[in-house]
């Protein structure tokens, strides 16, 4: 028996030794932990946020955002709106090359945007559907002609829809472009092992190469936050997002440093106000019941209990620190007496509310805190923890009363509200419909100064905070732990890691 065991072990060692090779990790290889394995890396077809995180190192966009969420040029150098706001003239950066050596020019912009607009299954189409055509003015100037004025366009072009790809490579690869994306970003694609790693290496001809110090980036999907943290502590990762509950551990560990920034998304409770039979509850029918629920919640206490006070409480679709936050309508203080009075006025002193939540420990804890707070006003909240994909389907079908869900957020405020509350929008699960809100949101799309847009959003907020189709709760922060060896890391509000300036010591 011992002989047999020795034989098996020896065989295994010999076989593995025969095919083994060197495995040294370069000093400038940055290992980034991702919360999940990205879907395809095709900028037109990809549907997940983590894919966008990886693509940010691979693919430059026409524009990017700065730390204050301002639009900054990336592959564009200048831009100008036409007088009727139906045309955007963009000057392009000269001397830029794609990873396959092809030049980046106006034809590449036209190709990329047309691909986003017309490719079957494109998830970018809805972001830039306002564009009717792309005109090439000269080699380095394009004009985007719009169907109607659309102020969020620049923000869309500073996100996934502004990603530029090599026309030659995309035409050759067709639908399979995502398995080997060729763009004009600081890193080029090397390999991907599904659920294991994505490896990129420095692109020598990058237009802004002086800012790139790393040789390689390896993205490792590690869904479990405990394991991700253990990897950071043991040196298996150099940079990764961490949970709010792990911040103390990160702060106490000399091997790690913490970085945090307010995000642009929100978490809230969507109420079914008109989607099928399950909207016919006191909560769905009477805004006073929804107002009572809002007044029952102490958002600051929720933040302290569940998120160690790290997140940002909020009552609107953008955080209170955002320039588009309507300051005249601040977070209401908890007021149980007023909540009870509202419930009495609505003739529903003890409403029973089924609240669907996704099956995640933090979400469940948030729901339990809300349940306990609302109980004092007379609410009987029954938490229904449901697996994510099932919950989405139930919500779309209207098979819910209240659904606690987060939204990752968009740079332009329009992206956090328009499709979530306008009549007949694809993800307005509660089927809220207020023509006045629609009119104001449409108007906010057509003006481009911050003051003018904010005026429209003020009108929207007055309706939304009265009708409460969504009770906004808090805005998560992006929390990162980085190896003490890593320098130059600046977290951005969109949660995307930019490789520029990163260096390992």
């Amino acid at each position, binding site marked *: 028996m011992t002989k047999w*065991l020795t034989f098996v072990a020896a065989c295994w060692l010999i076989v593995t030794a025969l095919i083994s090779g060197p495995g040294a990790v370069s000093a400038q290889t940055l290992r980034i932990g991702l919360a999940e394995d990205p879907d395809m890396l095709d900028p037109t077809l990809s549907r997940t946020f983590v894919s966008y995180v990886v693509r940010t190192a691979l693919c430059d966009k026409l524009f990017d955002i700065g730390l204050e969420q301002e639009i900054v040029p990336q592959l564009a150098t200048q831009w100008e709106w036409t007088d009727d706001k139906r045309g955007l003239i963009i000057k392009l950066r000269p001397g830029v090359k794609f990873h396959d050596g092809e030049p980046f020019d106006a034809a590449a912009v036209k190709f990329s945007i047309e691909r986003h607009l017309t490719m079957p299954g494109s998830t970018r189409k809805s972001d830039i559907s306002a564009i009717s055509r792309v005109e090439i003015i000269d080699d380095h100037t394009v004009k985007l002609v719009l169907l109607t004025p659309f102020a969020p366009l620049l923000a869309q072009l500073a996100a996934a829809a502004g990603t530029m790809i090599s026309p030659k490579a995309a035409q050759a690869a067709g639908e399979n472009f995502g398995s080997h994306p060729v763009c004009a970003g600081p890193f080029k694609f090397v390999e991907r092992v599904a659920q294991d790693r994505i490896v990129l290496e420095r692109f020598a001809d990058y237009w802004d190469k002086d800012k790139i110090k790393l040789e390689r980036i390896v993205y490792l999907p*590690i869904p479990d936050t405990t394991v991700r943290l253990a990897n950071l502590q043991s040196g298996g990762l150099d940079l990764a997002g961490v949970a709010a509950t792990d911040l103390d551990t990160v702060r106490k560990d000399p091997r790690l440093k913490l970085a945090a920034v307010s995000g642009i998304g929100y978490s809230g409770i969507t109420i079914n106000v008109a989607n099928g039979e399950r909207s016919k509850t006191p909560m769905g029918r009477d805004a006073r019941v929804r107002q009572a629920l809002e007044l029952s919640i102490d958002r600051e206490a929720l933040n302290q209990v569940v998120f160690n006070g790290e997140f940002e409480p909020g009552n609107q679709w953008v955080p209170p620190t955002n320039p588009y936050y309507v300051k005249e309508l601040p977070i209401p203080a908890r007021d149980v007496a007023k909540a009870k009075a509202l419930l009495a006025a609505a003739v529903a002193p003890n409403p029973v509310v089924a609240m669907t939540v996704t099956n995640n420990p933090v979400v469940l804890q948030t729901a339990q805190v809300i349940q306990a707070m609302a109980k004092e006003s007379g609410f009987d909240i029954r938490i229904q923890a449901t697996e994510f994909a099932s919950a989405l389907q139930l919500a779309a079908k209207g098979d819910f009363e209240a659904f606690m869900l987060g939204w990752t957020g968009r740079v332009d405020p329009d992206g956090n509200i328009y499709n979530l509350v306008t009549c007949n929008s694809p993800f307005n699960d509660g089927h809220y419909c207020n023509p006045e809100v629609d009119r104001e949101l449409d108007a906010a799309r057509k003006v481009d100064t911050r003051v003018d847009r904010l005026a429209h959003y003020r009108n929207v907020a007055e309706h939304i905070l009265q009708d409460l189709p969504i009770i906004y709760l808090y805005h998560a922060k992006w929390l990162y732990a980085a190896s003490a060896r890593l320098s130059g890391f600046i977290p951005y509000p969109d949660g995307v890691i930019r490789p520029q300036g990163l260096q390992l010591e």
Partner: protein
Amino acid sequence: MTTFLLRRLALVLPTLFFVSVLIFGLQQLLPGDPALAMAGEDRDPAVIAFLRQKYHLDEPFPVRYLLWVEGVLAGDLGESIRIKRPVRDLVLEKLPVTAELAALAIVIALSIGLPMGILAAVKNDSAVDYAATMVALWGRSIPNFWLGILLILLFSVEWGLLPASGFVSPAESLSRNLATLIMPAFVLGNAIAAVMMRHTRSAMLEVLSSDYVRTARAKGLSETRVVLHHALRNALVPVITLGALEFGELLSGAVLTEQVFTIPGFGKLIVDAVFNRDYAVVQGVVLCTALAFILLNLFADVAYVLINPRLRE
């Protein structure tokens, strides 16, 4: 022997057919619309409609099943909706990882379970026997994910000896490959070792009290030779069955362990596919693991015969 093998092989196809219908049917019972789950946060209706049509999600169940079977017979297991790669490639990529982990786990299980089982039988009712039984009980009752996290905290975070998770191919570096696999393999092997120890112990106790062992002792053979050469060989039959079954189970994916250690094997592939409603991947992986399981059972049957000549008749 040949007839026996042929008869067993003839059962493979109907079993696989049954498994495929079952998994295909059960998946339809899963709540959650795959197109909706795949469409991303924006849930663009045009994208949802496109996905439904492209992946035949709008066709009735029998049509979808036949389309899938047609593909399988032509060697095409379909395409992952999520990452747009052929399922066949994913299976071929993950199988060696899971197989290596499973093999290592079995080696660990054998190296712990067999000697402990033998010792416990030879020193029956002694302190050694009780200690071995306690270790076995511990091994079986400790949850894999918990032991996994404990090991990570100890060996990776505290002592910095082993990588906390991930996988390095042996083609890249053998030492790092072993370093990434040793903890998950131990977690899996530890649980199997416990069962193996109990099986070995009871089989050995039975064999040690048989006539031929008494004869061997009477011939004046050393106790070591009696135990290891004469008794163990016969006691191995149930242990082999167990080993083959456990190995098959490991091949179908050590779901929790692969999740904790982020090992990109079958277990992780299938869990992610279920949560993302990536049906083609689930079907492909289940079909392959069912096939592996059937073949391993067959292997166990053949191994009995080889080890115990009396069964050759």
